[in-house]
């Protein structure tokens, strides 16, 4: 039409000689969690090929680790995955404790379990909210954030931070918890259980939600194995692999909890697994609170300088997103020779490209959301 008005015709949309075209989704896109860029090859709304392009949030954590001593890397650890910073922070502490041979007091171990599980619930709640937001449901998002706020308040009272808790220290934790913390934690567990029926009525049973989720974005066991997919995404295809069970760290072997699995491997299975995990975390919290002993939160003798023996160590924990491993190579000095972070989102995201093929644009958003990718963790 422009030619009629005496203007040059606008550039045609990318023509490939066929009916397909490329679409850059991200890194600035409302539903790209963080800064993922998806290069989509599309025919209409159908995805022929999807290539995730990452690195926009690369902060060189591993390089930083090599230039700082072991203790100075501590605040970095909770920033790798800011949504479950507590779990990562404590994982690094535990890895170092094993490397250095430090005994952790009982009380500190229990506190660590409680705050880690609270953090896991908060991460899952945030996932729940943002996932629904990806599907166009805004209200569940705010309900979930309301509940999550409670956790953040509890954790802030203890750690002083709401997101990047540098709460752990080699050998224990920085601050002790009090009776009010215990009271608030139990109150939160009760509150969350009270909210679950609402969530199910509003979301899980909703016919629109079911249609969006069931049978979409299948990750089967073979795919999971080949890509090293872990966490709720793995348990949603029927593999009961949870490091708290498979490779118990800390005092997790003492607690009675289930590893929820689902057979289907679709988005809805991942959703159900995460909701069930919140309940299991509540159970662990209750047990840990009941068993919380009195005593110190740091070992008697505290070292000032940390020089591990020469050697390598791999320590893995179950984060909210899956298998988080810390591989430390020590050359006997105060700086690590190499500190590699094996982050679950990295592996999970690499599998997403295979899953996206043949789906629609709307599914892309749902699948990405359901895998629960945290981009800073992918990029590190």
């Amino acid at each position, binding site marked *: 039409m422009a030619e009629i008005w005496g203007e040059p015709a606008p550039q045609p949309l990318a023509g490939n000689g066929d009916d397909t075209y490329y679409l850059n989704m991200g890194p600035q896109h409302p539903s790209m969690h963080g800064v993922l860029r998806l290069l989509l090859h599309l025919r209409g709304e159908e995805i022929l090929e999807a290539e995730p392009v990452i690195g926009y949030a690369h902060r060189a954590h591993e390089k930083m680790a090599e230039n700082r001593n072991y203790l100075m890397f*501590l605040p970095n650890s909770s920033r790798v995955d800011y949504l479950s910073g507590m779990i990562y922070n404590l994982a690094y502490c535990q890895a170092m404790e094993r490397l250095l041979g430090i005994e952790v007091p009982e009380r500190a171990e229990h506190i660590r379990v409680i705050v880690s599980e609270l953090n896991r619930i908060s991460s899952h709640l945030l996932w729940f909210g943002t996932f629904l937001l990806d599907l166009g449901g805004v209200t569940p998002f705010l309900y979930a954030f309301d509940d999550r706020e409670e956790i953040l308040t509890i954790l802030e*009272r203890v750690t*002083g931070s709401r997101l990047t808790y540098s709460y752990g220290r080699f050998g224990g934790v920085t601050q002790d918890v009090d009776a009010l913390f215990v009271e608030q934690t139990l109150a939160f567990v009760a509150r969350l259980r009270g909210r679950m029926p609402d969530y199910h009525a509003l979301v899980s049973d*909703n016919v629109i939600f*079911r249609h969006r989720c069931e049978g979409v974005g299948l990750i089967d066991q073979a795919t999971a194995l080949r890509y090293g997919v872990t966490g709720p995404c793995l348990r949603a295809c029927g593999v009961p692999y949870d490091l708290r069970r498979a490779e118990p760290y800390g005092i997790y072997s003492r607690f009675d909890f289930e590893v929820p699995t689902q057979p289907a491997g679709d988005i809805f299975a991942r959703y159900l697994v995460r909701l069930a995990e919140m309940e299991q975390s509540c159970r662990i919290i209750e047990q840990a609170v009941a068993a919380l002993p009195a005593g110190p939160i740091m070992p008697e003798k505290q070292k000032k300088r940390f020089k591990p023996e020469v050697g390598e160590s791999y320590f893995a924990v179950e984060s909210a997103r899956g298998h988080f491993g810390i591989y430390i190579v020590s050359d006997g000095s105060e700086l690590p020779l190499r500190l590699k972070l094996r982050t679950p989102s990295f592996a999970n995201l690499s599998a997403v490209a295979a899953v996206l093929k043949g789906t629609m644009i709307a599914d892309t958003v749902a699948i990405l959301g359901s895998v629960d990718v945290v981009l800073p963790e992918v990029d590190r």
Partner: protein
Amino acid sequence: MSVLVRLLRGIWSLMLGLGVTLKNLFRRPVTQTYPHQKPELSAAFRSAIALVNFPASGSHDCVACMQCVNICPSFCIKVEGDKPEGLKRKRATVFEVDYALCSLCGLCIDVCPTNTLKYSKTYDDVGYRRDQFVYDLLTPFRAGEAAWRERARVAAVEAAQPASAGPAAAAGEPEVGR
């Protein structure tokens, strides 16, 4: 028939969802209207570090040992110190924190040998330039610095005389505690 059942079941599930939102419509909002309602800060709240004012000595007790400077993963602390005449320990003359770089990890507070570092409770600092966040932690202590040095010197002199190691010594060597 099954189609109809599925349709009705679907409609029922939508009704349930509408019920949840309707229920929440009549509940009290949880919003805190921030500038009108100030948040309650927890005791553990972390903001930029500050120097503790020990009542016993009427001043901070930074001995410019550089431990916080060395442990800071963000390299945001700058400390200089001199040795006041007559005293055994050093005394900070410069203590700056670049809050724009600080990651609030608390390692400096952990390593401080005299426990003179604490978190402050400021949460609403704003600025247009990065250098506005370089805080001079000695500001509140500048006015009393000369007096403190004089007191400390006197106390040190008195302490040197073995008989009169009295309460005045506390001015020079404040009790450790936060």
